[in-house]
């Protein structure tokens, strides 16, 4: 199997399969899920049977259906947040690298300030004060996350800006928008793509953690993190219920990491000793 002329390793193939299944399930959740995520369909903690493969949960809702809708919420939310953090981080990071001087100083110090605060605690404060509506959740995490994207985008762009083709563009009299979008961005795509995968994983785990603590996705929406929280006591009664959403979180994280590892390996092979 080859993608864009690169051989796909076995682990990457597994990763791609995992991610593809998850995305398919997330996109077509209403069509796939046998029951609604929020409607009780039987007794609480009913055992699995032919209709309810993993049984029912604390309110009598179908666990399989909630896992499927949970994929939609967890993956969709993480994607939106990661994308937003990349828009903020990449634009400001490139601007800092290309403009340099005081622009770089101001942006970098703001980022230092944000990075100096523990992310989870900071998110707690914001979400407790402003409430846990989805837009607040998205913007808070995206802004916090964009500081890490900024760091990477700035250093990648710094390396590119020092190359002579950027100097040639400057000598031609090009403005900074041309330099950022036409000279720097196309050459920064490979490292940024890999970083996107990694940041997606972190965001995804971060949301799961927030939901587990009750500050993330709110009921009645299903989300893997909050499902682990809702079902966690059942482990004491010999039920595997909390393990299903936990396994879903772990599987997707590993899958994405497999792909990222493969992409980083391709990227690093291009450098080093060329013959």
């Amino acid at each position, binding site marked *: 199997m080859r993608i864009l002329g690169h*051989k796909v390793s076995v682990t990457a193939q597994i990763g791609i399969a995992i991610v593809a299944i998850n995305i398919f399930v997330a996109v077509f959740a209403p069509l796939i899920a046998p029951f609604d995520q929020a409607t009780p369909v039987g007794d609480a903690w009913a055992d699995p049977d032919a209709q309810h493969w993993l049984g029912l949960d604390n309110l009598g809702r179908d666990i399989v259906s909630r896992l499927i809708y949970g994929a939609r919420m967890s993956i969709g939310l993480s994607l939106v947040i990661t994308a937003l953090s990349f828009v903020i981080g990449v634009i400001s990071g490139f601007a800092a690298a290309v403009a340099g001087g005081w622009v770089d100083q101001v942006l970098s110090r703001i980022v230092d300030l944000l990075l100096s605060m523990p992310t989870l605690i900071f998110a707690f404060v914001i979400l407790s004060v402003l409430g846990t509506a989805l837009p607040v959740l998205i913007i808070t995490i995206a802004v916090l996350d964009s500081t890490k994207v900024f760091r990477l985008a700035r250093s990648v762009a710094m390396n590119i800006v020092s*190359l*002579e*083709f950027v*100097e*040639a563009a*400057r*000598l*031609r*009299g*090009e403005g900074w928008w041309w330099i950022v979008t*036409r*000279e720097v961005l*196309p*050459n920064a795509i490979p490292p940024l793509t890999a970083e996107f995968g990694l940041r997606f994983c972190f965001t995804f785990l971060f949301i799961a953690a927030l939901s587990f603590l009750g500050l993330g996705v709110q009921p009645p929406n299903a989300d893997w993190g909050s499902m682990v929280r809702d079902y966690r006591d059942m482990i004491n009664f010999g039920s595997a219920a909390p393990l299903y959403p936990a396994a879903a979180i772990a599987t997707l994280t590993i899958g994405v990491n497999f792909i990222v590892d493969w992409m980083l390996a391709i990227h690093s092979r291009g450098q*080093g*000793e060329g*013959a």
Partner: protein
Amino acid sequence: MSERTMGASRSRDDSVILDVRGMRVAVRTDAGDGPVLVDDVSLQLRRGEVIGLIGESGAGKSTIGLASMGYTRRDCHIVGGNIIFGDADVRAISLDERRALRGPKIAYIAQSAAASFNPAHTLMEQVCEASVRHGVLSAAEARAEAISLFKQLDLPSPETIGSRYPHQVSGGQLQRVMAAMAMVAKPDILIFDEPTTALDVTTQVECLAAFRKLIREHGTAALYITHDLAVVAQIADRIMVLKRGKMVEFGDSRQILLQPKEEYTRRLVSERVAGHNFVDANVAAQVPILAIEHVTANYPGKPKVIDDVNLEVRKGDTVAVVGESGSGKSTLARVVTGLLPRAAGDVRFNGVSLPPRLNDRNKDQLRRVQMIYQMPDVALNPQHTLLETIGRPVAFYFNRSREEVRARVGELLRQMDLPETFITRKTSELSGGQKQRVSIARALAAEPDLIICDEVTSALDQLVGEEILRLLKKLQNELGVAYLFITHDLGTVKRIANKVAVMLKGKVVAGGDTAAVFAPPYHPYTQLLLSSVPEMRPDWLDEVLAARATGQATTAALLRAP
């Protein structure tokens, strides 16, 4: 595979220390088989003999050097032939046995000493490390041996230089320390991989002399890899000429230099000996377009890099600025382009003073001065097509429509002798020489009056560089564009420039018509530079060293002078 091949060794001449027969190295990746890098190369290296491997980039000379140690770069594999070192076939022995060879028996000296030393350890630690690790010498013995080698290599204060860190010595000194590192364990074979290529000419002479002395005194056999025939002529007993992984010619050094049998060797030799003279003093009109007047510049918070420099370029003329690294010649180019604002003096273009800062210049001022860089790999955006690269200045400066831009790019490609079908290719898909042609096309697309050429041929192979020079001259005749040539290569200067300015420590020490500057009476520094350019005669180095011993100038002495 671990069985030693003893049989072959008995029939061989005892004095042969490295016997390479039918070596083939090819690229093998999980994506399939790649090109063959070295194809059926054989050589017998005797004790105390130096064989020069010469060829342009891609000739496989470094690959042969590494493969002789049983080592290949990533994804490359030795796929055929025998490499018999002493009694053992390097290909047949185990990894551990191979490791035991490297260092004590066969050692490697790389092109960039700066990249080969660990900046966090002292020189002495690194020089002694391998032989102590291999158990060849005790720490104290290795130390004593290193100091004695530092002496033999003419390094300053040999007793204490070992306690310095790599950044505390000069490039030429570091290269010699690396030779000492290779020699500490007294190997039977040294492999030199372009050890002087990154050095200035005057430093190169010192290193060459030190290497040759070392090899002769210790009777060590060596493979000397370089692209410069004149360099290898000074040190090698026999020379092997390589082209695209195949042996072209192999023979005695004098025979290769004086009576080359193959056409390819003849071309290599003749380019160095004669070089076509492009200089045509009548082309230039009497109109000065660029006048640099009493210019001084420095980087923020640093001392002056150029100091009171005067220079004039006339319409359609070629002026060269020569000097060694650190002489300020590239800084001068940055001042003219406005990348580094001048601190004092004036830069006038067509009679009008140019604003010091790039951002204060108008579009027309920017258009009229263009630049071509040393490294075409980084001077062109690898993600852009030729149409985008060459077409951008056309669209940017002249506001042309899409069709007009395309037509103009096609015309420029024809002028560069590049196929018009290349227009949709990405610049990263081209060879070094082709990339440099695209750089020239991009500069010409702006229809400039002056092009600054910053070491435009030094990253290219000799024959390719020659073609680029010829192309630049042809374009000058057709378009009347003036060139400001920044270079360290005196051969290039003599061939292309009508006027020359010799720079030393930020000042122009000699200037005027090329013919006058390069004829007696010389400025002492000009003479030092001229005498340091290797000539295609095996006796050249001896003559230069003899002349210097009788008290002629060295860079160090000149730099000390007020």
